[in-house]
């Protein structure tokens, strides 16, 4: 099993270098279709090779002819570039969905005290430090009246 895994890893490297023959590619597809208990890094590739296998016409699977290396060499790089662009765009979408709303500015310094917005450094820093101290379990009295008095009408 270990030798087979090593061979598969070699084939995968050659696959991404565009150097595999069609029969070697089919060997990869067959492996990822039938193998179980794979290492995590190989398991993550299973969907990709299963998809490749699904789009192979039956006639091609019987042809052991090696493809043009010149044609194959640039393709993985083009795919990698396209995927990188998509990942960067996806990361931007993820960031806005994965976290609370994030301001665009590089530096943001704002507090909303019972609905009233302030960018006073003193107020923002005081509140930030208050919540930090509270979370550090160092205690600290809750002094609501100070903030309420500052923003009362």
């Amino acid at each position: 099993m270990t030798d087979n895994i090593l061979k598969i890893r070699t084939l995968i490297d050659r696959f991404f270098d565009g150097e595999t023959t069609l029969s070697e590619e089919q060997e990869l597809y067959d492996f990822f279709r039938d193998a179980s208990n794979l290492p995590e890094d190989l398991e993550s590739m299973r969907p990709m090779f299963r998809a490749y296998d699904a789009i192979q016409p039956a006639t091609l699977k019987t042809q052991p002819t090696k493809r043009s290396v010149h044609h194959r060499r640039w393709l993985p790089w083009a795919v990698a570039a396209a995927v990188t662009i998509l990942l960067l765009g996806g990361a931007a979408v993820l960031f806005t969905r994965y976290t609370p709303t994030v301001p665009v500015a590089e530096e943001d310094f704002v507090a909303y005290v019972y609905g009233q917005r302030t960018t006073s450094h003193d107020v923002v820093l005081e509140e930030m430090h208050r919540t930090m101290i509270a979370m550090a379990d160092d205690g600290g009295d809750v002094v609501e009246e100070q903030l309420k008095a500052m923003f009362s009408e």
Partner: protein
Amino acid sequence: MKKSVIMILMFVSSLTAFAQSGLKVNELFEGRIIPQERMVETRVRGKSLEKYQLTYYRSLRMNVTHDEAGRLRQLLGQDAEQSIDMRTSRRNPHRWDTWTCKLQMPSVGSKNRFLCFQEVWNKEHDQCEVTVIYMEGAISSLEELEEKLKN
């Protein structure tokens, strides 16, 4: 060409699935559980956070009812299921009962993320103040975060 299209589509679909596991506590930050008029919110990004090794700090502080506290705990519990580390603590001095939960959430890129939640119950008046803090930065563990918060 077909292979390229398939590969691109697979990556896009995986990104979509990944995006669906966002923080449940976002509902609170967006004011959908407690009105923003009842909360004190801070949002800090930039140089002020450098000494804490943080890049983003957002906190909410509010007084809540029993039912609201329960709802917030529900959201926290859902996020805790996605966390990679969790620490809880409780202090019970004479008048105040304080329960704190700190979560380290899965990183997004190089951003390590933390969610902290605290309830402070005033036993005499049956009131509860809740503090929620979301942080991003280079801090790598809850232990390191606690050290930074204490300093």
